[in-house]
Structures are given as structure tokens and as C-alpha cells.
């Protein structure tokens, strides 16, 4: 097998890596934002439940959670490994993203909510129009970290047999005997993806930055 085909074979896994990320990252964000809102604005019980969720989810290795969730989902709902793996990663990520968004909400001053209520906005209107737009801007920088983690953790679905980058590297390494070049190629692709995503999110952060005098 020539070098071009060797690389191409591994590179084809990128579609799965990006696919898993494209499902896991937004679903984690939606869940994480929802949980963060409950954790900050919910009643005492909700706060405790959210705190427990976050502590437990973040206290278990992602691969272990992934396997548990996968066997629940593939067994009970009969999802394909790709979907089960992606959604599982999204759920795991939701705990981390919840903490990111929670921190970002708390970094918006309490006065913003008070000022919003003072002109007659309801709590929900204030959250949607005032708190979240500022929160999500604040969250982009830490969130780009989480994006990098998800891109890298997408390699975990390898354990479920999804033919993503790492899985392919291993297969072609075994068939050709060139393990090191295979894994190095995989490493390079992951690095390029992570690098590109941080750059893109950096640009987004700049673009959404609220104008202010120096």
C-alpha cells in the first residue's frame, strides 16, 4: 500500500470524528445551558440535583460513562453505534458545559437582572434577552477548550467500533504492520482539527466582542 492510500484511509475517519463532534458538542451545549440555568435560577432542590449531576458525571472517566450509556442506548432504544456514541459524549459533555455556562452566568453582574426586572421584563425575558447573550459571549473562550476536548474524546467511540480516525489508524496499522506511522498520522489529524477549531472560535469571540473604549 502506498503512502497516499495509507493516509487517505485514516483521513476518511475524519468524517466520523467531525460527525461525532457535531452531534456531541451542540447537544452538550443545549443540555449544559439548560442545566446551568436550573442550577443558578432554580429552587433549592433543583440546585442540589444539578450539583449532584455535575459532580457524578465529572467524577467518572468518560470512557466508562460512554460504555454505560452506550449499552443502555443501543440495548433499549437500538441506536447505531455512531448515534449512541455521539449522544453519550454529548451527555457527558453537558456536565462540563454546564459548569462553563454556570460560571459565565455568574460573571454577568447581578445588577443586569435587577435592571431588566426594573423596566418590567419577566425573569424569563430577562434571562433570554439580557443574561444569555452576555453569558454565551463570556463562555466562548472556555467553551473552545471543551470543543477541543470533545474532538479528542470523539476517539473514545473507537471502543464502540465506529470507524473514526483512531479506529482506522489501528486497523491499517495492524494490516500493514506500520503502527507508529499510523498513530502519528492520527495524532496529526487530531491536532489539525483542534488547532483549526480554536482558531475559528477565537475569530468568533473577536467578532462578537462588545465594543468598548480602551
Amino acid at each position, binding site marked *: 500500500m502506498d503512502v497516499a492510500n495509507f493516509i487517505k484511509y485514516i483521513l476518511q475517519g475524519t468524517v466520523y470524528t467531525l460527525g461525532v463532534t457535531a452531534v456531541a458538542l451542540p447537544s452538550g451545549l443545549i443540555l449544559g445551558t439548560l442545566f446551568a440555568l436550573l442550577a443558578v435560577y432554580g429552587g433549592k432542590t433543583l440546585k442540589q440535583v444539578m450539583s449532584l449531576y455535575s459532580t457524578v458525571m465529572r467524577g467518572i472517566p468518560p470512557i466508562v460513562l460512554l460504555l454505560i450509556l452506550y449499552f443502555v442506548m443501543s440495548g433499549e432504544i437500538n441506536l447505531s453505534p455512531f448515534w449512541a456514541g455521539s449522544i453519550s459524549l454529548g451527555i457527558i459533555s453537558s456536565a462540563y458545559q454546564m459548569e462553563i455556562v454556570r460560571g459565565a452566568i455568574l460573571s454577568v*453582574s447581578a*445588577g*443586569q437582572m*435587577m*435592571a*431588566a*426586572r*426594573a*423596566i*418590567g*421584563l*419577566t425573569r424569563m*425575558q430577562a434571562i433570554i*434577552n*439580557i443574561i444569555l*447573550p*452576555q453569558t454565551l*459571549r463570556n463562555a466562548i473562550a472556555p467553551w473552545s477548550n471543551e470543543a477541543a476536548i470533545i474532538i479528542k474524546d470523539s476517539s473514545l467511540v473507537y471502543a464502540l467500533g465506529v470507524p473514526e480516525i483512531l479506529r482506522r489508524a489501528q486497523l491499517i496499522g495492524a494490516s500493514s504492520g506500520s503502527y507508529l506511522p499510523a498513530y502519528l498520522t492520527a495524532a496529526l489529524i487530531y491536532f489539525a482539527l483542534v488547532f483549526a477549531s480554536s482558531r475559528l472560535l477565537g475569530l468568533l469571540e473577536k467578532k462578537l466582542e*462588545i*465594543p*468598548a*473604549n480602551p
Partner: protein
Amino acid sequence: MPQPILTIKKLTKIYGNNVIFRDIDLTVAEGDTIVIIGPSGTGKSTLLRCINLLTHPDGGEIWLDADEITAKGANEDLVRQHIGMVFQNFLLFNHLTALDNVKLGLTKVKHMNDKAAEAKAFEELKRVGLSDRAHHYPGQLSGGQQQRVAIARALAMDPRIMLFDEPTSALDPELIGEVLEVMRDLSKSGMTMLVVTHEMGFAREVADRIVFMEKGNIVEEGSPDDLFYRPKFERTREFLWKITELYGKKENADGPSAAEDTESNQPAAEENA
């Protein structure tokens, strides 16, 4: 006597074991400008926050026109629409331009269409002299300009009464004037205002009544002249002149000079002796 806009009866606020104020009575008639003064920690700000229900009193009643807004089941969001609030730290929405800050309540709360809301928001900015800053973000405005936008934002809701919580305390001295000028104009235009401030020059010129609060009680209230020159309590006189000395000395030059002269000359006389 016409129905007062705001009637406060036996209002009490307690945090834990700490009585912030107790049994406060106050009425504000239409078009009145009332200035509340007093040492810090006296409950002035908390009183304002109680009035627009940002904090809830532990006892007593607040009436806005003929409605008890502290009654169970009162629609708080509706109440707040009718009571404008200006904060010490401006609290503009940081991610919105000046225009959008003023406009937001009109579209989201009053459900005006975008065009009408924009026109009205622009009018309000013009009223505070900031039509040329409509598309600036709060971070691009000076403190004085931010506070004027905050005033415009509150005015846009066409409130029955405006509450000002130390509106100039967070401003650099050279920016205080522009904000006081807007408030002076507003008072002259007939807006009903309740102002917590240390600006004695403003109080003496604009207030219909000054209320002196200390340790959670209203010690004394009356016209500026009564409080400055014929106070019932020594404590009132003492506080007023101390504050005047600190904040607005030159603005008192036109007042009767007896009290002022004694105050300012005493230390010098002692030094000479």
C-alpha cells in the same frame, strides 16, 4: 387634596435580626420631587427597592395611585413598568447599544412594533441630549452619558414616578453636572420623582420636600428651607451642613449666610486663637 401617586404606610424591612427600617410613612403627590437624605446604611436604597418591589417589605403597605402594589397577587412586572428606577451604577445592558437599551422595554414589555419603539427610544435619547450617541455601546460612553441613557431607558416606559438611587455617587465630579441637569429638567417638566442623593445643591434647588432618614426612621421632613434653616432637630441641622460642606459648598453661596459662616469660620477662628 388629590390622590397621591405614591403612599407608603408603616413600611418595615428586616434582614434576619437587622431592622433596616420600621414603620416608614411617606406620601408623594403628583409632580413632586422628594429628596431623601441620610447617612449610609440608613435604608434609603432599600426603601427605593421596596417601592418597585425589587425587594419585598416585611410589613406595611405601598400604594401606587389607587392600587396596593404590596397586596397578594399584585402583578409585579406590571407595577415595575409604572415605576422607573435609576441605579447608582447605571446598570445599562452591556451588550446593547444606547438605542437598544432604551428600546428593549418598549418592544418586549410594551409590545410596540420595532419602528415605533425605535422612534420613541430615539426621542428619549434626544431628551437627555444623547441622540448622537444612539449607536454607541455602554463601554464606549462616559459614566455621565451612561447614566443619562439609563434615565432615558426608564423614561421610555412612561412611568408614573421615577426613583433615583444615588444617581451621581459613582460619577467623577466633572460628570455629575450633566446628570443633575437632566434631572432638574425632568423635575421642572412635572415628573414625579423620589431621589436619594447627597447633592445638597440639587436638593435645595429642586426638591419640594426633603426627607431626612437615619437608622431606619424618618427623622424629619419638610421644605428645603425648613430643613436647612429651621430644622426641628439638631441632628438634622448637623447632618445637612456636614453633607453640604462635603458635596456642594459653592452651590450654597446664595443661601442665607449666617449658618454657613459659623460653620466654615469656626475652625479658622480656633486656629488663630
